[in-house]
């Protein structure tokens, strides 16, 4: 087979995997919601169908990785496009491992979208095959990056299970409020709930609910960023400045740029409206501004139209199912598997490679430092669970926070900070 054929095959397999993840997510969702509406009479098989579809998608995705590997001549984790796609794969692979242990189908309705999002997000970066610079030409490239990504994949599952736990407990709270007795434990009925969460303070309840809304707004911002980036990248609009090229209409211009130098937006907003201060790159500020604004728009659309005006957290909480105690354990178990894998791949292998390539095992490079911070967050997760009995809600929030740090390490550090990992950077 020629290289071009392999690359085409890889793209097709990737498309199939994407469709498979999407189908599996919808089936998982249908199984949960349909099963609840029909009180278990229908959609009983939806979950196992979804798991099979999902496995097929994971295999397609693996095929896509192998084809690109052969086509590119190197293991496809060498730039941001390849790496984010690879992490989408590991998150779904980790999900397959966990779902086969616990058979809790509702989990798929939350972890599936993580994979779908990551695959979409990967296209923000240019998908072309780039030859390897000398520093990356090593057998450590597949070992270090794949292993770290696998650990992070398990953290993604822990995030999904943690979020589902938070929704589920919120759902029980709402049920208790509706029943008028206020006891979550009673509302839980047949399912078991960690003791810590049967008696929550008012403070915890209020902030638990607000925290969920902040989290969903954050998710909306990331989705909005991805959609905007894809839309404007492929639409081909660009605004040229002396030292940077914008793909989004410049509201915040580069430092020192004259206001209105690029005409106006929609006939009345001068472009740029303001110039960036000296300590920040105008292009990044502009992108951040758009993401925050369109994320807010997306959040409002979901909240008003889909959730019929209720907070998104409450809307989803009413749909969530599953035994909270089991969800708590799944989240913990995913961290307990991901943690040693991440330690090996993200820290130990990284140190061994750094020693071989650069002559020292640690450089306090921003990415190294953030990987260490992520590791410390998960270390804290494991410790407070045992020493302080942080189970349930607090533990779930830590799993969410940990994954946030992981995402920042992978995405934020590359976009905002320059370091020895900068070759893997992207531009938006």
């Amino acid at each position, binding site marked *: 087979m020629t290289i071009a054929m392999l690359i085409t095959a890889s793209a097709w397999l990737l498309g199939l995997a994407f469709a498979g993840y999407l189908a599996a997510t919808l089936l998982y969702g249908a199984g949960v919601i349909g099963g609840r509406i029909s009180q278990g009479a229908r959609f009983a098989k939806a979950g*196992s169908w979804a798991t099979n579809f999902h496995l097929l998608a994971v295999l397609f995705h693996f095929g896509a990785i192998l084809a690109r590997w052969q086509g590119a001549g190197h293991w496809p984790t060498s730039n941001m496009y390849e790496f984010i796609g690879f992490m989408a794969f590991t998150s779904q692979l980790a999900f397959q491992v966990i779902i*086969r*242990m*616990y*058979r809790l189908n509702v989990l798929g309705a939350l972890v599936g979208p993580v994979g779908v999002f990551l695959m979409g997000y990967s296209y923000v970066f240019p998908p072309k095959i*780039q*030859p390897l*610079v*000398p*520093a990356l*030409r*090593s057998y*450590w490239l597949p070992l270090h990056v794949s292993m770290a990504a696998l650990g992070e994949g398990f953290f993604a599952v822990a995030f999904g299970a943690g979020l589902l736990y938070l929704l589920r407990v919120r759902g029980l709270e709402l049920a208790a409020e509706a029943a008028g007795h206020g006891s979550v434990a009673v509302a839980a009925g047949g399912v078991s709930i960690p003791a810590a969460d049967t008696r929550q303070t008012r403070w915890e309840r209020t902030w638990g609910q607000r925290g969920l809304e902040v989290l969903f707004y954050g998710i909306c911002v990331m989705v909005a960023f991805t959609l905007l980036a894809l839309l404007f990248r492929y639409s081909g609009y660009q605004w040229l400045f002396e030292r940077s090229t914008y793909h989004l209409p410049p509201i915040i211009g580069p430092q020192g740029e004259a206001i209105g130098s690029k005409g106006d937006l929609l006939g009345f907003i001068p472009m740029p409206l303001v110039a960036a201060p000296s300590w920040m790159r105008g292009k990044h500020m502009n992108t951040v501004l758009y993401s925050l604004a369109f994320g807010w728009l997306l959040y409002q659309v979901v909240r008003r139209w889909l959730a019929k005006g209720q907070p998104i957290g409450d809307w989803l909480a009413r749909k969530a199912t599953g035994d909270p105690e*089991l969800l708590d*354990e799944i989240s*913990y*178990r995913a961290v*307990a*598997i991901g*943690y*040693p894998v991440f*330690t*090996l791949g993200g820290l*130990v292998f990284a*140190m*061994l490679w750094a*020693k*071989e*390539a*650069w*002559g*020292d*095992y*640690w450089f*306090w490079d921003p990415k190294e430092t953030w990987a260490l911070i992520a590791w410390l967050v998960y270390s804290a997760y494991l410790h407070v669970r045992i020493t302080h009995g942080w189970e349930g809600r607090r533990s779930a929030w830590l799993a969410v926070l940990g994954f946030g740090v992981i995402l920042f390490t992978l995405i934020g550090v590359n976009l905002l900070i320059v370091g020895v990992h900068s070759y893997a950077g992207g531009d938006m």
Partner: protein
Amino acid sequence: MYYPVRYGPFWGKLYMNLGLTHAYSSVWYATLILLVVVSLIICSLHRLVPLHRMLTRPQVWKLPQFIQRQDVTYQVDGNLDEMAKKLKRRGYKVQRDRECLYGDRGRLSRYGPYIIHIGLLIVAFAGVAKAVPAWNQTNDVWIPDGQTVKVPGTNFAITNHKFTMELYSTGMPLRFATDAAIVENGQEVLRQVIEVNKPLAHGGWDIYQASWREEPGVAQVRVTNEAGQMVTNLAIDLRQPEQEYRITDHISMVILAYYHDFILDPETKQPSNASFEIKNPVIMADFVDQQGNSVGRAALMVLGKDTSYFSGAYALAVTKIDQRWFTALKLHKDRTVPFMYFGLGVVMLGMMITFFLFHWQVWVREERGQLLVGARAYKNKFGLKQDLKRLLGIDVGEGTAAL
């Protein structure tokens, strides 16, 4: 003095005095590391001693209330002998005391965290030991192609037989390599190609391909007489020109001054060098006969960045410049590396034990012909439930998988 200039005298000074400009080698950072180490040792011991006692000498006889308070509880028909046999078959270590029974498996898992902590202590030790100068030495050497350079602080020299740079068709670098040799007492003892990701190891030193440089190396200079006829060709090394070159049998060219990066100092109006690089080499020379009388003068701008000046009988013209390639090698001798790797190995071993083995404890009490079963999982409670259900013959539930 960058910080006071950048942030003003107060904040800049404060910033420097707090050690924020060199955080990872500052005193407060070392103090933090020390505190972590001390608390790690104390916390570990504080928990390890009672844990070890609990694991090796567990209390077998328990009240029914204790058993019913456990995470997983069952009440089944059966007798203790049978139960003990079943538990043993599934790998539990079983102890009996009157009407009570205690079984546990995966006990080793509980020691895992302490193995991790010991590994981390070794890692911290190795990290701190790097501060000892004798344990952590580095050296950078620049070697031109075909030359040998003695490495300061070692008993060997390194020869760069040839530096190679390969590029992709796009101009991106593909490979940097130095065909290098180690020379001891004038003899080559080891020859190896050093590449990025392929260092050379010799006598405790690791030698890395770090960088490269290309500069004008040797200028081929044609000397012509007043009639414009060629007199001779000279090869002038632009790093280190000789003091005198012979032109003919009677005439020689004496170098009066040489600047590798010529500039007229804006303040003193004196000629000097703008940098250490060979960017604008200028040769100022005097042509003298055998009696020492000057017969001509020359100021040659080798790269032609300015007009050359000649007076008298001879003129110079550069015909060709041979580039000279340098390889930069980084030498690192780090005696803490074996400790670091050993520590990391211990950490990983501890993690495997901690996270992939599970400690499950089961207490059983015989009460009026029935068995009270209470069990506790330090991790993977779900797995314990499945295990006990299967052991007790309770339906594990449809769709739940084997663990």
